[in-house]
């Protein structure tokens, strides 16, 4: 394990402990530690174990999935602005989930929503990679992503117009803004298989991503099959983005910021970028969720909004720097 990974893992552990402490119900440090150890009164134990920790775990897992998906997509498309949110993958994934809900599939099976979200993510990723294979540059890809995002948003609104019940608008807000409030262990367990398989696929593509840095043809001549790498990353990021959207709605920009920060620490290597990016994105989302919980707003700020408030400016900054270096 590299030093970067170790430091990030320690930070994540610290934030987990902090998130067990933070919240509206007053729980002292001593009570909190007792509850973590499985002692103390039942109410405190419930607050720590059934409300705060699953929420923290959901934030971390979703962040890590988005960070890994972002790092994988960036390596594949060789574009530091690639990320499920920016490229419309998350929006398509949310569209899949919304369709599943409004067609009543969610009532049929609990895995219908995650499955539809993953399918939506897969469709968007496939379209993007088709564009990339046909030689689309950074700008084209981002434009395709913007198009996919807006299109998915419009289709979601359409689905809601057709939806019979009045609660759907707040549902839409939840899907589009993203939140991990009130998530239970069951939600995490539901997403876990897709996250685990998706993560494994992307990590498996790691060496191929480094070879791909020398271009498709050279990579092929080196013995790294670019098609296989592409399939692994498409499949992996679809699973990761889909499962994270099914858990927390769409949360943008985290997957872009984390790899950008990590890259200089891992010698710009697309393979070594993967795990630290996942950890950092998890940390970022965990910290953002902590902030959302302690900030004194009347109504809780949505996690996706908090992430975008920080991530948006960073995205613009990276884009501006890229524009300068390529012009």
């Amino acid at each position, binding site marked *: 394990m590299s030093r970067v990974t170790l430091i990030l893992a320690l930070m994540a552990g610290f934030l987990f402990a902090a998130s067990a402490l933070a919240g509206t119900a007053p729980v002292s440090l001593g009570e909190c530690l007792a509850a973590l150890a499985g002692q103390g009164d039942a109410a405190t134990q419930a607050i720590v174990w059934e409300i705060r920790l699953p929420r923290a775990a959901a934030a971390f897992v979703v962040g890590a999935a988005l960070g890994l998906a972002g790092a994988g997509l960036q390596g594949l498309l060789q574009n530091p602005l690639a990320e499920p949110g920016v490229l419309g993958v998350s929006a398509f994934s949310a569209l899949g989930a919304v369709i599943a809900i409004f067609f009543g599939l969610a009532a049929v099976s609990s895995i219908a929503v995650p499955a539809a979200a993953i399918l939506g993510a897969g469709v968007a990723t496939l379209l993007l990679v088709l564009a990339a294979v046909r030689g689309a540059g950074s700008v084209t890809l981002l434009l395709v992503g913007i198009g996919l995002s807006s299109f998915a948003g419009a289709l979601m609104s359409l689905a809601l117009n057709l939806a019979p019940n009045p609660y759907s608008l707040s549902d839409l807000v939840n899907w589009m803004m993203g939140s991990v409030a009130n998530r239970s262990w069951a939600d995490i367990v539901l997403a876990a298989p897709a996250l685990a398989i998706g993560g494994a696929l992307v990590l498996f593509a790691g060496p191929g991503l*480094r070879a791909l840095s*020398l271009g498709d043809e050279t990579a092929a*001549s080196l013995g790294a099959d670019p098609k296989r790498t592409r399939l692994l990353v498409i499949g992996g990021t679809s699973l990761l983005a889909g499962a994270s959207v099914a858990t927390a709605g769409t949360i943008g920009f985290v997957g872009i910021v984390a790899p950008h920060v990590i*890259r200089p620490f891992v*010698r*710009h290597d697309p393979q070594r970028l993967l795990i630290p990016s996942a950890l950092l994105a998890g940390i970022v989302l965990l910290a953002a969720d902590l902030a959302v919980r302690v900030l004194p707003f009347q109504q809780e700020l949505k996690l996706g909004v908090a992430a975008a408030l920080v991530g948006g400016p960073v995205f613009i900054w990276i884009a501006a720097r890229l524009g300068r270096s390529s012009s």
Partner: protein
Amino acid sequence: MISVSGLSVSLAGRRVVDGVSFDMTAGEFVALTGPNGAGKSTALKAMAGVAAAEAGEIMIGGARAGSLNALERARRLAWLPQSRPVAWNLRVEDVVALGRFAQSPGAYDRLGDEGRRAVDTALAKADAGHLAGRAFQALSGGEQARVHLARLLASPAPCLLLDEPCAALDIAHQLSLMETLGAEAASGRAVMVVLHDLELAARFCPRVIVMDQGRVVADGAPAEAFSAVNLARVFGVQRAPSGQLQRSP
């Protein structure tokens, strides 16, 4: 080592390589020359497996190229393309380590002793040992070219194909490149290098293949391949009394 028979390749409906045949045995050092658009790079690409052959057969180390998977082919043959993009600002030694992808797909520090030694040796052969540890995009064009050469030399493949490796190199490094490739051939590898500098080809390569309009028009010792007739017909030049090449009138 490598044998090409009746190879034809079409790009966008145009036949770029048209019935090319030659054999190359271990220890041979062959220059592939010809005017722009003669099909040299495409022929190399077909041998490297990145351009689809329309007709003909390529045998690499006794096996049909089409029956080899990417990994098996990479163990037998290494290719240095003409365009050498490097996305991301990789470290020099990580770029070179990719030359051993078929042996071990790890980054430099995960290669193991043997792999790291091979990378270090390759960097030294390409006169790029001092560049180790540097970021690739901070290097000059010539330095980047030498790192790419080291990437090729790091591969233990018995057959090396180089497409215009001299571009961006200063004269001293061009000469040292040709000496290095000669030494690789002497150590038993089959080396084919696409060159535009006929003097360099004649001086270092015992065998020259000349291509023109997709066909092999000469294959032999430099004196024979670069005969006055071939120079005039293929390259449109003639040798002046001073020994210099000049455009045919």
